[in-house]
């Protein structure tokens, strides 16, 4: 494994790629008369870019903006509030990926509910949640189905598994979202100025390159990109090349994992368990056809139907620019609360709390970017 994988994070290759990217970016930026604005749609890309310190190497030429691709960041206040309400129900154990635990709702979070006595369990895999429910028949396990196309097939399989095992105490609060409709919504917003897209590698592994063909109509260059540093540099390089050549397309820069048609088995499992519906995205509002709901044969596993929840009245914190940041209109430092009233120990918006949230990534890795020059 390591024999070839390490090449994707090899610093020698990275150095050559950076050199090439800088060369290309300089020429493109010169032509534009400004920095090139690229959006990494995926939150995992946001973190990877920060971790590798790529902004310090490219930031003078490239304006790398985070998009709506952090699933916990785009979870609506109303949905977080409902998750909190589920956690407060007696007899209910909420199962979740670690990422959701600190996401703030209107006035609480799962972390706080746990401190207040709720039973919140973190699972690495939805299969583990099913196994837990089977072992604890006296508890109702509600799994929080959060994530994009990458995650939804695994949750779909876990629901089928619970059905096959006849579990009566397992249900899912389905909050899965789909990436292409969100991209569409972004492109339709006239205020958004993005020169190209770094497309999510693992979402694409499921949906395939073909799913992005609608992008070509907008004549914007885009590259499906893996998550190793050299993958990201390669993706940026391909976008810049297309820009320089004025040949915008959707290229697959992650051919070792992403196929043209995607993963058919995963698509089939998703289609069997879920139906496409509208979904509300934080910062965007309702995007038609951008979410999943349970298909009729699996309706019994719908936590939203199984439990009666008090009505939620979401309160969006004043001044939080998360919505604009998720659309790439602003960068975190342009939020006036950033690092003032809002920081990871007392986050105002979700973008500050998820480790792949744009604000958290900027706070954690790049807050003092200006001050660094003397040591860099």
């Amino acid at each position, binding site marked *: 494994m390591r024999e070839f994988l390490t090449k994707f994070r090899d610093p020698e290759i*990275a150095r050559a790629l950076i050199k090439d990217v800088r060369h290309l970016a300089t020429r493109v930026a010169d032509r534009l008369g400004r920095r090139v604005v690229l959006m990494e749609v995926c939150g995992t890309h946001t973190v990877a870019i*920060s971790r*590798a*310190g790529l902004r310090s190497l490219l930031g003078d030429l490239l304006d790398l903006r985070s998009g709506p691709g952090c*699933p916990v960041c785009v979870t609506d206040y109303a949905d977080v509030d409902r998750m909190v309400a589920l956690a407060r129900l007696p007899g209910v154990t909420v199962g979740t990926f670690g990422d959701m635990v600190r996401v703030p709702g209107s006035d609480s979070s799962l972390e706080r509910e746990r401190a207040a006595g709720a039973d919140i369990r*973190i699972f690495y895999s939805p299969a583990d949640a099913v196994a837990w429910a089977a072992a604890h028949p006296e508890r109702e396990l509600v799994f929080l189905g959060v994530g994009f196309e990458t995650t939804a097939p695994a949750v779909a399989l876990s629901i089928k598994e619970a059905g096959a095992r006849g579990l009566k105490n397992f249900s899912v609060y389905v909050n899965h979202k789909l990436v292409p409709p969100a991209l569409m919504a972004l492109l339709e917003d006239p205020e958004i100025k993005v020169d190209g897209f770094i497309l999510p590698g693992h979402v694409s592994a499921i949906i395939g390159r073909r799913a992005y063909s609608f992008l070509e109509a907008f004549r914007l260059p885009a590259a499906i990109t893996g998550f190793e540093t050299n993958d990201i540099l390669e993706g940026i390089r391909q976008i810049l090349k297309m820009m320089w050549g004025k040949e915008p397309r959707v290229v697959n820069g992650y051919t070792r994992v992403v196929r043209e048609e995607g993963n058919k088995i995963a698509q089939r499992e998703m289609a069997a368990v879920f139906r496409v519906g509208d979904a509300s995205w934080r910062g965007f509002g309702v995007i038609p056809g951008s979410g999943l709901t349970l298909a009729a044969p699996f309706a019994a596993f719908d936590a939203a139907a199984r439990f009666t929840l008090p009505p939620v009245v979401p309160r969006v914190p004043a001044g939080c620019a998360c919505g604009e940041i998720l659309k790439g209109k602003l960068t975190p430092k342009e939020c006036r609360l950033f690092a003032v009233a809002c920081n990871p120990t007392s986050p105002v918006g979700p973008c500050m709390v998820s480790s792949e949230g744009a604000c958290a990534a900027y706070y954690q890795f*790049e807050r003092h970017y200006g001050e660094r020059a003397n*040591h860099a």
Partner: protein
Amino acid sequence: MRKNDVVLLAHGDGGALTHELITGLFLRYFPGRTLQSLTDAAALELSGGRVAVSTDSFVVSPLFFPGGDIGKLSVCGTVNDLAVVGAKPLYLTASFLIEEGLPLAELERVVASMAAACAEAGVEIVAGDTKVVGRGNLDRLFINTTGVGLIPDGVELGYARLAPGDQILVNGPIGEHGMTILALREGFGFAGQVASDCAPLNGIIGELLAAVPGVKLMRDLTRGGLATAAKEIALAAGCDIILKEDAIPVRPEVKGAAELLGLDPLYLANEGKFMAVVPAADGEKALGVLRRHPLGQEAALIGEVCSGRGNVYLKTAFGGTKFLDMLAGTPLPRIC
């Protein structure tokens, strides 16, 4: 009725069963004369330096893990806190907080492990305490140790001594303890493939101080990991610190597990690792001393001190620079 094989509430009531536990278990493993006298407070022999004191409570779950257990940990943790301020650790107090129902055999395993760690570190347990609380009011066993040591005259460590150019060393690969515990707690399949680094550091630190008297500061890299410790130093010293990512040793299995869980080894806890700041000229010498000790064979020079205002930077393997802050929130396995 069968003999007592678990701890009962009555073991903590200060009466006959408490007495039985103390004399039948604790005094058997901790044979020091001071403890045996069973007074309300221990009288210590101390001379030849300033007295150093440190306290820590240990709440690790599970109690036993690859590389150690709560008993070893409770000795090493406090010994290391004393060692990193330049003190020679001498005496420990041990306070046991026990949940009713703990098997006495497990308690004995822990106590035996503490005794072995004390012997390794050359410290003596001189005072103790035992409390038992009702089922559900405590998770099996917590231990507090408080350590007393002597800082020899001449040893002067402190934030104020840091200066640009000082070299920063670590005695070995990071993140092992934190990853071991997380993996066990979350029940990951790879739990058995990582082991805690739990070890008493007073030996290796003693050799470092003897060979490199110029050592300016040391920190053990416990909760919050290397990044948090570096940040605390930078803030307290009012300087910047630059760490070099590819110089920081991380074992492949820790790196792999961290990737799997979306975690950063820089923020994972260690229990047998410390960082030391030495003058620029002493860097290589210090590295040599550390590497000759069994607990420092993979020691490395990992960064340096710069003038600044309390920031920590990491030079990535790709030549980029990123900002390191304190840990914010317990590391949780991530999927996104």
